[in-house]
Structure formats: C-alpha cells, structure tokens
C-alpha cells in the first residue's frame, strides 16, 4: 500500500519544494528588485526597453494596460494565422508540407494566442519546422507571459493607494520573458534532450522494420500474411495477393521538439510537438524527462501563489490560496488514481486479463504507456487538467468513466486549481472576491479583501470572470450538440460520444487544450466555434481582472479591525473551495450526468 502511494506523495512534494523558492524569485523580479541572476539578465532587459522605447518606471492606467494586451495578442493572432496559411512558400519546411487551410489556421492561432493549445491538427503531419518554432514556440512564450503580466497588474492594485496606474505591460512582459521563461526553459530543454527528446532541423528519418508489413492495394493491413522479401510476394494461406505493397520502413519524426516542449510545459500551454503529445516516446522518452515535464507543468502556477503572498506583504494569504488549490488537486488525483488502477470489468474479462500490479503497472492500461504506468499517467492527468496545461502523457479518451469525469470537472471549475500561469491565480482571486462578498452578506458587513472594499463594480466584473468558463462551455457544447454534422466527429458511441463533445468544449472553455482525442475536431464548424470560445474565455476575464485592478488601485486602504473577516484561516480556505465547487458543479452537473456518469452506471451495473 505504502509502496503504491509513495510515488504520488513524492511527485507532490517535489512540486511544493521547488515552487516555494521560485515564487520568491518571481516576486523579486516583478518588483524590479535585485536577484542573484540580475547581473546576467539586466543588460538584456534594458536593451529591450531601448529598442521599443519604453521607460521602465512609466506606468499605465488599466485601460491602457488592457489595450496593450489586446493589441499585442491581436498582432500574434494575425501573424500566426498568416504564417500557417503561407508555410509552403516559406523556408524551414523539409517535409514539404502544404499550406494550412484558413479555418484550421484560425483555430490554431486562437488556440496558441489564448494559451489554450487546443490542437485540431497533428504536428508532425501538418506544420513545418518554421511554423513550429517561429509561430508556435513564440506564442507559447508570450501567451504565458501575458497571463502572468495581467496577474501582476492585479497584485499591484492591492498594494496601491488612490492610484490611477497599475504598472507597465511592456515592462512586465519583458521581465517575465528575460528573467524567468527563457532561461528556465533553456535549462529544461537541454535536460530533455539529454533524456532522449529530439532537437534538430533535419527531415524525418526512416529506419527498417524488424518485421515488414503487407498492405493491400486499398491501403489496409493484410493479416496473417507471409512475406517473401526475395521475390517481394505476399501470400495468405498459400494464395498470392496481387498488388500488395510491402512496407519495410518506419518513420522517425524529427525537428526542433525539445525547445518547444519545455515551454509548452512550463507556460501551461500544452500543445504537443507531436500529435500524441507527451505520450510520444520522442517527446517524453522516460521517467527522467517525465518528472521534469510533469513538475514543470504546475511549477509556475504553484510558485505564483507564494509570489502573491510575498508581494502583497501577506504570506499567509498566499499560503491560504495555495492550500485551497492544493487540497482540490490532491482529492482529484486520488480519485483518478484509484479508478484507473481498478480499471473496468470490460478490461478484466472475468479474470482472463491480469490487471494486478505485480511485475507490471496493471489497471487500465488502454491508452497508457508502459513506462509511465498508472502512477505517472494519473498524476499527469490530474496536473494537466488542474493547470490549464492540456498536454497529456496518456489518452484521456480511454480513461475510466470516473477518471475521465474528474479531468473534465477540473477544467469546468474554471481552471482555478492552480490553473494557467497567471490566469489560474487571477481567476482564483476573482473567486476569492466572490467568497468575501458572500461571506460579508452572511455576517452583514461591507465585504473587504486585503484592505480594499469590495463594491458592486468589482462584484460585477468578478462574477463575469467566474462565469466566462461555464458560459463558454455550455453555450458552445449546446450549440454543437444541435449541429447534425458534429455527430460524424465522434469516435465512440452513446454516452461516451457525448463525453467527447463535452470534453472538447470544456477544454476550450477552460483554455486547457487537452482532448478526448478520438473526437475529430478538424471541421470548419468546430474550428471556428472552438476558436471563438477560446478567445471569449481568455479575453473577457482579462478585461474583467484589469477593470477590477484599476478600481482597486484607486481605492484607499481600510484598516483591519476585529470585525474584519479573516481571509487567511482554514475557514476561508473551506469557504473558497465551496464557492468554486458550487459555481462549477452546479453549472455542469446536468451535462456530466448525460456523459461520464451515464457511462459509469451503465458499465458497472
């Protein structure tokens, strides 16, 4: 028992141990304080200011901050769409891949600009090396930085008194990229290559197969074929098959993968270099790379909780928010791990299949890699849907009904269990504002949070931030379920088919990007509608958070009295969790009972 639980505990412990110091470092960097590394990075930071003609101490109003965020994201969206649509005419395309159609280009651009990294395409078969590195890698970096920048505008607002400004977008972006994301990911990328992740600009390799494969003229695999390589003939039961093709080689896809994989993990982006993401052995070859990628996935979102506490000079508040997130993560992880290890009756076949955990991982191994087994797969699944990362190292479509439901639920809660870099925490702070308001109503006092009065203006925006995800998911999946053509995209029949659809919009609506990958999302209707959902749930909350930040910064600080509701004790942590669950669970219970719950009850009884 202890042996089975130990890896889970260690995975979580490694995360917390690394997140704490990193959080303090980020806090220093964002305040412009000196760190051990500033002699190295400061010259680069200053050079950027010189090029874009920005003064580091010149701050912006919330409206200007917002318009810079929008303009910058719009520039990325236009450029990335164009880059894909023109890739065949550009260099860096040794596989000679064609231009990407407009609807798929828009979907992918919206996906990467919004830090979702939903992928309706297969990387190795669709995008050139130039598109991957100059397009996607860049957006992986800057969309992550945008989320963190917006968070810091809000953090600063809590500290300011009667101020009209909340910081400078360009300065925030530059500091995050130069001091944090680029150096951190450089180190991670090198570690990944050492472990076996590919990194080059060569065209794909081919290697020989130990056993050649016979393929009929229609392109189907011929079973029980006997292949004579000398005469190049294929026979089945002694009969020669005409026009059969003998496949003797396997493709080894290559390219600049490690550099992109590092940032897709740490920036909670999640878009795999290869189609099957970090389940691919060349993207995540062993448990050394897996532990780096998996910890990297939650590292910055967890660290930012501690940064928050440090920078508002209230460490307990940071810890309280961290605890609320951590507790929800642990429960989710527990449920996923247990249901995956117990598998299903369909898998165990009345004992004919060995699903025990002796000399093998056992459990539900459909869609899971041997090297990761149940522990590393379940932990990753819990991490990636808690953070709005969306990378996978196993196929969530093949999870047990309950395991799959938890991953879905974590996204539907609004990606606030750590969530995306920056956006997870600012989403959670919107929930915290909601919580103090509700708690304030209960005790009959004007609600306040961190010394700032919470009034109708903040409430309206916070509610919009909290409801953006449910609106995006339910409206999106509701419309899609009514479109007849969408049925053809489903890979499994019945309740599981509905789950595939719901998961798709949950993933888009939570800016997560993972998938029940059997679902074929590459159709014009789905590309456009999913693209719009992603943009909506990313930018409405950003506008709301910056509006709240602007309003909070302009307020004076109210003194803490004996009557002030404490927002750092266990009671507040509990209330916060309840509010998050209430909004999420109530919005989604009907939809979940049509999908995963229906499947669970029909498979067990």
């Amino acid at each position, binding site marked *: 028992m202890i042996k089975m639980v130990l890896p889970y505990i260690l995975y979580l412990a490694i995360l917390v141990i690394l997140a704490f110091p990193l959080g303090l470092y980020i806090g220093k960097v964002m305040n412009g304080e000196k760190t051990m590394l500033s002699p190295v990075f400061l010259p680069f930071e200053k050079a950027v200011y010189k090029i874009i003609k920005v003064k580091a101490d010149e701050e912006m109003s919330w409206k200007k901050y917002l318009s810079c965020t929008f303009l910058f994201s719009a520039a990325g969206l236009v450029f990335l769409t164009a880059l894909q649509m023109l890739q065949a005419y550009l260099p860096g395309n040794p596989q000679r891949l064609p231009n990407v159609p407009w609807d798929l280009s828009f979907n992918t651009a919206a996906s990467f600009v919004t830090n979702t990294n939903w992928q309706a395409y297969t990387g190795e078969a669709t995008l050139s090396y130039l598109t991957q590195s100059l397009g996607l890698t860049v957006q992986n970096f800057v969309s992550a930085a945008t989320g963190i920048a917006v968070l810091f505008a809000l953090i600063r607002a809590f500290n300011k008194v009667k101020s009209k400004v909340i910081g400078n977008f360009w300065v925030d972006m530059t500091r995050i990229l130069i001091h944090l994301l680029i150096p951190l990911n450089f180190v991670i990328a090198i570690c990944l290559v050492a472990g076996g992740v590919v990194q080059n600009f060569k065209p794909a390799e081919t290697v020989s197969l130990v056993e050649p494969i016979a393929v009929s003229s229609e392109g189907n695999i011929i079973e029980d074929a006997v292949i004579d390589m000398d005469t190049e003939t294929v026979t089945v039961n002694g009969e020669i098959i005409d026009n059969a093709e003998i496949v003797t080689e396997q493709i080894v896809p290559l390219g600049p993968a490690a550099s992109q994989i590092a940032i897709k993990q740490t920036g909670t982006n999640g878009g795999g270099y290869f189609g099957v993401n970090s389940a691919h052995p060349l993207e995540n070859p062993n448990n050394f790379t897996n532990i780096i990628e998996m910890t990297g996935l939650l590292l910055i979102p967890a660290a930012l909780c501690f940064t928050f506490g440090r920078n508002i000079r209230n460490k307990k508040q940071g810890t309280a928010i961290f605890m609320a997130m951590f507790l929800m993560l642990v429960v989710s992880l527990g449920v996923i791990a247990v249901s995956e290890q117990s598998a299903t009756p369909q898998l165990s076949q009345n004992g004919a299949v060995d699903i025990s955990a002796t000399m093998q991982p056992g459990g539900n191994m459909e869609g899971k*890699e041997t090297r990761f087994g149940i522990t590393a797969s379940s932990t990753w699944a819990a991490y990636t849907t808690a953070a709005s990362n969306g990378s996978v190292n196993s*196929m969530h479509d093949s999870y047990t009904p309950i395991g799959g439901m938890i991953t879905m639920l974590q996204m539907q809660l609004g990606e606030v269990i750590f969530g995306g870099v920056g956006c997870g925490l600012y989403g959670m702070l919107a929930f915290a504002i909601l919580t103090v308001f509700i708690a304030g109503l209960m005790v009959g006092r004007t609600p306040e949070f961190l010394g700032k009065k919470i009034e109708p203006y903040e409430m309206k925006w916070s509610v919009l931030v909290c409801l953006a995800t449910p609106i995006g998911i339910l409206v999106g999946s509701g419309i899609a379920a009514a479109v007849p053509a969408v049925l053809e995209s489903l890979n499994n029949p019945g309740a599981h088919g509905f789950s595939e659809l719901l998961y798709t919009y949950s993933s888009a609506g939570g800016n997560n990007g993972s998938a029940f990958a059997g679902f074929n999302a590459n159709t014009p209707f789905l590309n456009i509608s999913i693209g719009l959902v992603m943009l909506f749930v990313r930018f409405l909350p950003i506008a709301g958070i910056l509006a709240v930040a602007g309003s909070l910064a302009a307020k004076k600080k109210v003194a803490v009295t004996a009557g002030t509701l404490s927002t750092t004790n266990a009671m507040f942590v509990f209330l916060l969790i309840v509010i998050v669950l209430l909004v999420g669970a109530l919005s989604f219970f009907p939809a979940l009972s049509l999908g995963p719950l229906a499947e669970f009850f029909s498979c067990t009884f």
Partner: protein
Amino acid sequence: MKSFRNDMPRAVLFFIVFSIVCGFIYTGAVTAVAQIAFPRQANGSIIEIGGKKYGCELLGQQYTDESHMWGRIMNIDVSTYTDKDGKAVMYAGPSNKTPAGEELESLIAERVEMMKAYNPDMENTPVPVELVTCSGSGLDPHISPAAAMYQVKRIAKANGMPEEEVISIIEKCTDEKFLGIFGSETVNVLEVNLMLDGIL
C-alpha cells in the same frame, strides 16, 4: 484613439523582437547545445549497426512472428507518411476507445483468445493487460516484465533456445524504475528482438 495609434507600432515591434529571440535565438541555441553535447539523443536515438538503421530505440514496432517478443497492440498507419521516394512508411497512433464500452470489450476478448492460442503453455495464466491494450502514443516501445515473462516459453521454443537464455536477454533489456521509485520497470521490445535475431 491617440494612445491606440502610439501603442500599435510598439505592440508590433515588441512582437518582432521576441519572435526573433524566442523563435530563432532560443531555438537555435538549444539546437546547437543539443547537437554538440547529445548528438545521439537529439537525432532520434537510432540503432545503427554497420551503416544500417535497425530501428529507433524509442519507437515501437509490430511483431507477429512467434520467434519474436510481441509488444503493445498497435494501430498501424501506413497512409499518412511516405519516404523520399514516395514509398509508404509505418507509423501508429492510439485507439482512443473507452475502456467501459462493448467495442473494446469484444476486441480484448479476441486478443485474449489469440494470446492463449499462441502461448499454449500459459493457458492457465491470465494475460498481462499490456499485451491486449493499445498504448497512449500507439508507439510504446516497452512492455512490463510480467508481459515479457508471459512470452518466454513461446519464444524459447520458436528459436530453439533454452528458456534461461531468453530470460537473460530480457533482463539485459530491462530498465529499473527511475531512482527505484518513479514510473514502471520496462523491457525494450525492439532490443530484445534484435538480440534474439543476433543483430545486437
């Protein structure tokens, strides 16, 4: 409107600066260090002996010959990729089937029958789950020691070698858990088969 006109060029300039830094300089620097320090890993961990590329250590292949060790169930794809001369090459992907559905239930039942038919000496042993399920990538190069040991008798018979020899090959190709704790113990199927064929 005025600030809009000032911010637009700055947004574009900032985008260009970091496109160059993250897209070219960062990617280029990682590639350079990778190619100098870890050329084998950075180029796909290919097993090359005497100029012939015998496979990629990290990518699974399909085996149906009784003398070879079998790996995970594969969803073979021969229609997506071609080599330089336009000849089809093999790739594979996951099934994405729900483990709680009838479709997979009957597929697994068929696979169990097949495993039993090919491994008659193991009639009374339950089939290790990895031998009847598709992996996450579809290209899983490994199976667990349990799944490897299940096949020892068949492999030994088909190759006319003592079981101990097969077991010692399996042990040579087995990797421990990372730091003794993380992930699972794995047997690299391609390496086992290349050793059985006397190539490695």
